[in-house]
């Protein structure tokens, strides 16, 4: 994985010193609240409902064992013993003390981590496919391009005070696992007809209160022109993005109001001016970045193992785990192991210090010292020899990390909601638990199959509800928590925004509503090969709506 050289380290250390000084001046009354807010957000620090919250960057979701151990240490030393993985592959701590945040940042810097630009109206953490480098279906490993982009975006002097936050995601596969079309910029790494590597650039996607899918503004951008093109997009946005209304300030609104064609024209005109500047990459830049993500020394005989198959036959619990949580690695004899952070009665995405430590050990022992965070709020040990999967599973099981539910209904995306977040209108963690309670039977969950429920406690949409197959959005109605439901969203290659079922549903009835939606699907589907999403797209809203709001039904 990418390791800092002395320059990267120096910049991060200087940032810690800068924020320490800013914190000191704030506490001494020398920086106004509102301005310190903007500065602390650029260092990941929020002031939440009950306490500050610190969001730590995990660039494109990749973590080394020693970094996992540091995350565990921070959870113990500065928090209440756990952290929360987010839908942007970051981790959040909900109980740090403001005065101690500079110390946390210094601890993070000691393992080449930081919280830079994890919030604020600037370019945020670059996200990507959590299976990058291990997936069978990828064209190239997207991470070198992500890291080049991360460095370009870090402390970019011109784009630190944008109209609004700005998120960039990369994908290099035909099955988009990074939700790129709901990002401000989605970069698809592709090859053109001539076989040259490059990118398709999508701009203007986003969730929140006006969800939109990105527009492809450039079909093919040559490989070396990545940064100049991103700079052109950002410059047009910084100059022309709306600043009069925070709800109209994302780039998606600029693209929409101006029209994608006109927007594209401006970007292309700007790009022409800067294409041949020092922003242009050279082959050496790319090669040396790629060398940071070199192949692991995979064992040639790994595929000869027969124990994996034998364990599958002999141990049905292991077989259940393997069915949902283990995927093929691009190298024969290796497997990708998903660590579920969605146990029964747990908070989706939470991991305790003890669990983080164990994962650090397992990664070190079995996965070349690396783990990944997914945008579905799980973790992955992506490079496990198949002969080791059984041992990994046994260890995971001891620490409640082996729930065999990846991609199933109980593998819900869920924001922190009203329990923590000061923006939230309604709780989401409790709803997730109520829904999980209704689907206790693993057999039934398997029968339902692949389905993505995504839930947000407010329309900012951190829980990606608009692209959930079933989306749940918490709203406040006269001081009570209600929930709007959408069906048919997707963040993958067939990206679409969900359709509203009808009036919002009460807190007491929301789990019932989900159960009914599933019942309709089970009744309507042609066979178990027809997924929920396919079924919904075929039969439409009517049967679902009729059942959800039937008179014996839920109060809406």
């Amino acid at each position, binding site marked *: 994985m990418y390791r800092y*050289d002395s*320059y*990267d380290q*120096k*910049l991060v250390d*200087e*940032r810690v*010193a*800068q924020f320490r000084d*800013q914190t000191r*001046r704030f506490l001494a009354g*020398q*920086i106004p609240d*509102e*301005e310190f807010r*903007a*500065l602390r957000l650029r260092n990941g620090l929020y002031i939440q409902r009950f306490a500050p919250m610190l969001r730590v960057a995990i660039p494109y979701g990749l973590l080394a064992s020693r970094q996992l151990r540091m995350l565990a240490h921070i959870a113990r030393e500065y928090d209440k013993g756990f952290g929360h993985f987010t839908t942007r592959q970051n981790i959040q701590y909900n109980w740090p003390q403001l005065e101690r945040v500079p110390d946390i940042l210094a601890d993070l810097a000691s393992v080449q981590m930081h919280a830079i630009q994890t919030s604020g*109206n600037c370019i945020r953490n670059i996200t990507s496919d959590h299976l990058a480098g291990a997936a069978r279906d990828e064209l190239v490993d997207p991470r070198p391009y992500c890291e080049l982009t991360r*460095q*370009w975006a*870090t*402390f*970019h*002097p*011109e*784009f*630190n*005070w*944008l109209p609004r936050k700005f998120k960039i995601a990369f994908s290099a596969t035909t099955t988009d696992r990074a939700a790129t079309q709901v990002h401000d910029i989605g970069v698809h790494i592709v090859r053109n007809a001539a076989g040259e590597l490059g990118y398709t650039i999508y701009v203007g996607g986003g969730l929140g209160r006006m969800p939109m899918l990105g527009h492809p503004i450039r079909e093919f951008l040559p490989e070396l022109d990545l940064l100049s093109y991103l700079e052109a997009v950002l*410059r047009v946005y*910084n*100059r022309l993005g709306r*600043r009069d209304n925070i709800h109209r300030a994302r780039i998606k609104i600029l693209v929409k109001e101006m029209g994608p064609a006109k927007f594209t024209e401006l970007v292309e005109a700007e790009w022409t*001016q800067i294409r041949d*500047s*020092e*922003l242009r990459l050279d082959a*050496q*830049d790319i090669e*040396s970045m790629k060398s940071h993500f070199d192949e692991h020394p995979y064992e040639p005989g790994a595929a000869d193992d027969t124990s994996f198959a034998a364990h599958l036959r002999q141990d049905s619990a292991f077989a259940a785990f393997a069915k949902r949580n283990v995927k093929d690695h691009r190298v024969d004899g290796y497997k990708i192991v998903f660590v579920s952070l969605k146990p029964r009665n747990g908070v989706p995405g939470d991991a305790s210090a003890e669990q983080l430590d164990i994962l650090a050990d397992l990664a070190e022992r079995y996965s070349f010292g690396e783990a990944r965070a997914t945008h579905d709020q799980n973790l992955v040990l992506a490079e496990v020899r198949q002969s080791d999967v059984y041992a990994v599973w046994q260890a995971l099981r001891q620490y409640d990390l082996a729930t065999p539910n990846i991609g199933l209904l109980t593998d819900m995306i869920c924001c922190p909601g009203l329990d923590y977040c000061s923006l939230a209108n309604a709780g989401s963690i409790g709803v997730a638990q109520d829904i999980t309670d209704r689907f206790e039977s693993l057999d039934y969950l398997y029968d339902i199959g692949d389905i993505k429920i995504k839930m947000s406690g407010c329309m900012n949409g951190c829980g990606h509800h608009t692209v959930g197959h079933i989306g749940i959005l918490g709203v406040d109605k006269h001081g009570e928590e209600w929930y709007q439901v959408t069906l048919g969203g997707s963040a993958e290659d067939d990206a679409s925004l969900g359709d509203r079922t009808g009036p919002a549903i009460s807190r007491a009835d929301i789990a019932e509503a989900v159960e009914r939606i599933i019942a309709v699907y089970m009744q309507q589907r042609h066979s178990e090969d027809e997924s929920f999403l396919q079924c919904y797209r075929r039969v439409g809203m009517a049967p679902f709506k009729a059942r959800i709001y039937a008179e014996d039904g839920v109060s809406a």
Partner: protein
Amino acid sequence: MTILLLDGRVAADEYLELADDAPLPASPVAVTVSLQRWQHEANALAASGSKVAVRLANTVDITTLPDSLLACPMIELLFPAFADGRAYSQARLLRERLGYHGQIRARGSAVVADQLQGMARVGIDAFVLREDQNPETAARALHGFDLAYQGACDTLPRVRQLRRSTSATR
């Protein structure tokens, strides 16, 4: 009393801000005028013998400005709110696209210690500090970082160049 930081040091501000409806000074001095006035009264301003600098709103499209602006000794960019970063792009375009070599000055709510180095990096070289600012803190903050990932309009060493030269000597 406003403080001007120029080349990292407190300096005297020679310019007088001239409102659009204020008469031209009788004897030659240094003034700043709005872009509008500069465009409409070009001849009178030239005839006055005064040193004339131009104030630009942050909504002005730099690429549409006339070449004659390049002869201005100073251009003042306005930061009307702490978090409004439009003038950052203006400064870069002035330097890089138009090749402007005169002084670029920042004035307004964002001209505080915590933004100065960013402003300097995009080519701003004079700062009218916001009134609550301590000039020593501000001058120090101009040097918070001593290298940078991106090329811009400043002389900070670039990480990419440093890497290339280290790998060349290796």
